[in-house]
């Protein structure tokens, strides 16, 4: 069974941690693939809308491939607003707005706070999907139009 663990929270699913026995180990490539934008869809002025990380048709999704056993640090650069020309629409991300899964499903997801750097160990998997939800808060006077903002995810392989 593929397995992913959050080192910081000491959460271990139904898998076991094992440490690398060798002090040096060749690392495979670190590959980060964008899969899906975070899409809030249609918003009504004055009506807040939340996209949950596990709302698979809407959440932002990125796949990260690394070497089994690697410890990765995940860091998001999150926008405070989306933009439509000169108009802005506030965004917020909470302590459980992000999730990680080795199976790209809610079954084994580990929730985490995208506002802080979080470390994960690839216990028996070589890839995982990172999900991102959020809260959009259009004002009652929000100007209609298409809004967007970039979300950057930076993955650092810390080794074994």
């Amino acid at each position, binding site marked *: 069974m593929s397995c992913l663990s959050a080192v910081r929270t000491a959460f271990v699913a139904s898998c076991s941690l094992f440490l690398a026995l060798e002090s040096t180990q060749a*690392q495979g*490539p*670190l*590959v*980060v*693939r*964008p*899969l*899906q*934008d*975070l*899409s*809030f*869809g*249609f*918003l*009504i*002025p004055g009506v807040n*809308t939340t996209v949950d990380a596990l709302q698979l048709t809407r959440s*932002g*999704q*990125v796949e990260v491939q690394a070497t089994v056993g690697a410890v990765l640090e995940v860091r998001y650069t999150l*926008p405070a607003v*989306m933009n*439509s020309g000169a108009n802005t*629409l506030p*965004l917020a991300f909470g302590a459980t707005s992000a999730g990680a899964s080795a199976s790209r499903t809610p079954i084994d997801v580990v929730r985490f706070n995208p506002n802080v750097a979080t470390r994960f160990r690839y216990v028996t998997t070589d890839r995982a999907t990172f999900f*991102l939800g*959020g809260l*959009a808060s*259009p004002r009652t006077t*929000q*100007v*209609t*139009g*298409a*809004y*967007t*903002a*970039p*979300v*950057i*995810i*930076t*993955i*650092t*392989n*810390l*080794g074994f």
Partner: protein
Amino acid sequence: MTSSRVLLTGVALLLGASLLQAQSASIAATATVVTPITVTGTAPLAFGTVFQGVNRTIAFSDLTSGRFTLTGNAASQVALTFTLPATLSSGANTLPINTYDVRVNGTNVTAGATALVVTSGVPVNSNFVGGNLFVFVGGRVQPAVAQAQGSYTGSIVLAAAYTGL
């Protein structure tokens, strides 16, 4: 000697740094702010005077067909959910109503209106045209041979929501 130690240290640091791989990727956060949908019932479905044992049909294009006017965003798709009564009531008496004929158009004319396959309580999709959508409702009442005289009424309810498309 000092220069050699510095050289070795620099090499060690370089080796250590190369072990940390880092990659970034970017996705977008997106949203479309739209005007709220408004739904207005603008005319009742009026069968007028009906006779015992004689069915009466009002076509969607008749002047007394039921009418709704919707406004919303541009050409966005909208899910329409109708609650269609099975009977009209007059006190304790009921008058069956059925065979609804529901059509939609982007302009407030019946010519060229598109038929919807409507099941009460089940959403059916349509699209705004320039932010407008007009709904026309026809139907049939079936008074019984011994239908009690009186004024019968019922409510046809239309709920609309963006589908996001």
